């Protein structure tokens, strides 16, 4: 969710007037606590509108970012992630035909992602308001926690009407896959996979902003 906010701040002007974008936020955690993290911003559904907007200089009073500017920002974020201890194999892909941006990396322990985000914040790529302590894992206790984060409602309320429309029908999917088998979880909004090695939460972004759905979850393993 936080990573998506980062990308969204970058891409907000581009997403204006487009009412459809999806975020996929995925972690794959092995038994030793290491794993892979993937974040996908998919605005493909609105590509006709985005293709037209991208030819404009400004929209709704905001500068429309050029392709090179987006690439620079993503590459900068990638460089910072690469420099974060515990994070390796950072990959980015930017498909400007379909408006899909991907960022993936491997981590030694899931808290490395938090540290990476902290770095982005320190380098002013992430906004001050965005919390960075998203995951915590306790191998000893065999638990993984997706922490509670502050609501963005106050920030959302401050937005103009046109900016708010960006979030209409926007979706957020969180997938967490594990090598270990899940014993229990605290948030049943996450659907457990039949093999009991993955959980998935699908939500409208507005539901998360208004806290109709919660992201926090503590998963215990067998």
């Amino acid at each position: 969710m936080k990573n998506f906010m980062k990308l969204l701040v970058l891409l907000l002007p581009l997403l204006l007037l487009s009412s459809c974008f999806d975020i996929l936020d995925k972690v794959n955690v092995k038994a030793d606590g290491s794993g892979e993290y993937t974040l996908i911003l998919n605005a493909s559904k609105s590509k006709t509108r985005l293709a037209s907007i991208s030819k404009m200089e400004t929209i709704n009073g905001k500068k429309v970012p050029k392709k090179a500017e987006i690439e620079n920002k993503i590459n900068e974020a990638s460089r910072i992630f690469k420099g974060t201890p515990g994070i390796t194999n950072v990959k980015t892909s930017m498909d400007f035909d379909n408006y899909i941006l991907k960022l993936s990396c491997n981590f030694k322990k899931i808290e490395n992602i938090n540290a990476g985000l902290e770095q982005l914040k320190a380098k002013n790529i992430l906004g001050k308001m965005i919390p960075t302590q998203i995951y915590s894992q306790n191998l000893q206790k065999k638990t993984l926690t997706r922490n509670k984060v502050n609501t963005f409602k106050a920030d959302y309320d401050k937005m103009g009407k046109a900016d708010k429309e960006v979030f209409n029908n926007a979706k957020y999917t969180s997938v967490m896959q594990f090598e270990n088998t899940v014993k229990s979880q605290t948030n049943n909004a996450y659907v457990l996979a039949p093999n009991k090695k993955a959980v998935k939460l699908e939500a409208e972004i507005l539901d998360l902003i208004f806290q109709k759905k919660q992201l926090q979850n503590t998963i215990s393993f067998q």
Partner: protein
Amino acid sequence: MKSIVKKTQTIAFILFGFMLAFAQNSMKIPNDVVFYMEINGKQLNQKINWQKLNPLLHELSKKNKENSSWNDYSKTGIKYDATQHHYASFNDSIQTYTTHFIIDNKAKFQEFINSTKKKGLEISQKKNYSYVDIDDDVFVAWNNDRAVLSMVNYTKPYKDLLTEENVDSIAVVADSAVAAIADSAYVAEPELPFDYKEEIVMLKDEIKYLKESIKENNKEITRIQKDIKYLEKHHKYPKENVDTQHSEGETEMYPQEEEYAEAEIDSAYQKELDSIRREDFKIVKKIAEGRFDQYFSSNLEIEVPKAMLTFRDPNSDAYVYTDYGKLMNDGIYGKMMKRFEFGQFFRNAYDSNSYYNLYFDKDKVKLVNNYQHKNSETQKTISSVYKGKKNKKLAALINDKSVGYYVINVNGSKCFDMMYNLLQDSGDGEYKKEMELMMETMKIVLDEEAITKIAPGNGIFVLNELKSKQVEYTDYEYDEDYNEKEVKKTKDVAVPNFTFAFATENEGYWNRVFNVLSTNKHLAKNFSKTGNIYSFKDEKGDGYMDQLYFVVKDGIVYLTSSTDNLSAQSQSDVSRQWAKDSSKYPLSGRLDVQKLLIGLEKEFKTPSERKSLDLFRKNVGEMYYKTEVKGDSVETEIDYKIKNSSENSLMYFFDLFDEIYKINEAEKKPQIL
């Protein structure tokens, strides 16, 4: 007998003289108001359906005040069928809006005022009127048959922040000599004394901001401290409630004394803020009282400067005058422009008055605007631009499928005269010579005649229906282990079918432009020529325009999304009338929103969007717009034809508002449950 006549004459003269001496003057509306509005109550009152309006007003007032006691707004003691006068003025620190109206039932009016004012507020009695503040900045005064409502907003006198910054930065680095220069430069705008109260408010705001981040960090520190304490004691994390970050229900570990300190600061801050508010209120009240004294000591007749009534139509429902020049040039924008060396150009361009007549007819709302530049010479050159030739070939592009159009028939060559005229008057003061030289150079460089031949000033944009186009997009689906997989899906989007065309007297020039585009090695992959049609193809085809066609034919340059638009299309009576109108005026446009909605239907997908679509369908009408020169002004008429069963166009808006309000309320209800 003679002496009696003489005496009578003398007495009559003396009495007449006394009458003249003691006659009260009428209340003159100041010449410097930026806005004046006259409501034609006699007409408007007949168009209002109070039975419909009352419940709506009652509902809305319930939102603002907990105990709204007023049920019938048609009986407030205000004489609705009399003329109302409204005007507004502003300067750096005071903005006022004043309304004068007649009351026909003083007792009822007082009762109404009592229901709207704050509880416990006393009505002040003056020599010839009573008054009360119904809000911090809204005051109402009345006598037996007249009333005045005055809104006054006061802000501390405007500080020239940019200048101040300059002086400050100079002061930091400069010696006393430079500082003295800066001081002397500052004499023109006297420096306001240091206002410690204002400074306190600013600093308190800063504290408030810092506190926010302290709170955030304190929570995190508390959590970690808790973890440390637990680890020190038990050498491991607790078994239950591992998720220490779920702070819901936890007791916050803020030091008690800190909380008290915080509360103390807050209350001191609040007190300070209150005292500033009180002082502001005193100033505002004094201003309002001054205005009331002035009005109630006059003969209560409103005298409006003639210049403001130049274009008033006695048949209109409302008439508005605005001094656009003053609004723009004396406001923040004007102050900004003063900083630019050539800002005078824009100040000249804005220096105009606008007059509006508004009509709520049975089937349409009509707004007529008369624009007049304050400099009659400039006005003449502006008017000359709007005297273009007609072009029937362009009008032929309007057909039965057309959703709307926008046409310009102006005199392109006169645009240069207008620009020179504005530039000429911009050069007063230090840049006069530079401006003259610049204009001379422009005249040499620009061959106005040749430019005008390329595009003499006739153009049209016609929107012919919205077509549906299927586009492919990427989505993600998940297998049962929640591995994502990219899948291709399709959806329909509405794309415009349009033609943009303009007249030219130099076809050769445009043919050469398109020829270069189609033969240039970099552009030729997108640009091609088939017969006399040039086309541009978007390689990806993912935007709204896949292909655009360019044709130069019979003195017209066409740019269209479909070559079908270039051949003659059928014109019914309606579209023929549209076409006729389009060539008649220098600027005109029309949009049939109902037709537009048919094309946009696929864009409305979710239930709430469909609901909005139904509401639009039921209510949205047709827009029409035209501009022409009338006398010594440029007149623009905007018509909006209504579409629903409302008794007239005024009630149409209330009905529409009521419907939207009810939908919103209905949507809110499930959330409360």
